[in-house]
């Protein structure tokens, strides 16, 4: 497990981050919406597994970003690359074991979905649809 370069914060700094809306799950919630103690919407995305905990990237988000993500108008990295980011290690019952505030650029690239990867398997990036439409139209 890599040691984040961010600044460690007290575990309770953001409040209770239990999932409020699960956007994608497989064996566990993998991408979900939660809120901080001020009611700010946050988007959490699973990065990797440790010994008895899961590490998530948590970013400040908005209703508009969430709507665009769910509709396939933006990809995962577009929703996750935000100026306010944290890393959160969750243990059982979504208790927080570790919390760091971190710059998105300090997260190992191997942990982040590549450009064009959407929230759901059946969503296609919009630019591909447009490109295929343009190709068809030019014939």
């Amino acid at each position, binding site marked *: 497990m890599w040691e984040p370069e961010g600044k460690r914060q007290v575990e309770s700094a953001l409040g209770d981050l239990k999932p409020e809306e699960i956007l994608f799950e*497989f064996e566990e919630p993998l991408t979900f919406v939660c809120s901080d103690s001020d009611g700010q919407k946050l988007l959490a995305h*699973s990065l*990797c597994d440790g010994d008895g905990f899961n590490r998530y990237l948590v970013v400040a988000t908005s209703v508009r970003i969430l709507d665009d993500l769910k509709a396939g108008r933006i990809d995962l990295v577009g929703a996750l690359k935000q100026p306010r980011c944290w890393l959160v290690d*969750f*243990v059982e019952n*979504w208790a927080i074991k570790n919390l760091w505030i971190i710059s998105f650029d300090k997260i*190992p690239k191997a942990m982040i979905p*590549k450009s064009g*990867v959407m929230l759901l*398997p059946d969503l296609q990036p919009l630019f591909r649809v447009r490109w295929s439409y343009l190709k068809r139209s030019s014939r």
Partner: protein
Amino acid sequence: MSSPLRSENYPDWYVENCPPADALNVEGTIYRFVESFPTIANDFLSYHEMGQRPNGKPCERCGLSVFHSIDDIRNSLRHLLKAYPGKQYGDKIVRRELSVSDGKTKQTGKHGHHTWWAYKGVTRHELFEFVEQLPNH
């Protein structure tokens, strides 16, 4: 102490009321993705046994994720490898025929995701054949 609600057919570490009453004996092909082929026991331990996925559903953590359709597992695995590249999902798909003596399954997720709860004494990693390896993104 084993729970009276738990069948004697299952390992005693299964949680209460697990598997659920509507899980079915299914005969037919199951597919699973793994890290290693030939299959090894470690790829067939449940998250409950490994102490992982602490926020998974307790009963599903006692079973193993499988699919009944090659298309469903391909689509799901492709997405997981791309969307969660740090999670180290195995990129090899294997399959075996399941008989009623091997346990029960139930659909527990979208896109054809099922959970297989093996009966006590079933060697979970045996009898699997290699199907294909997906390119790791």
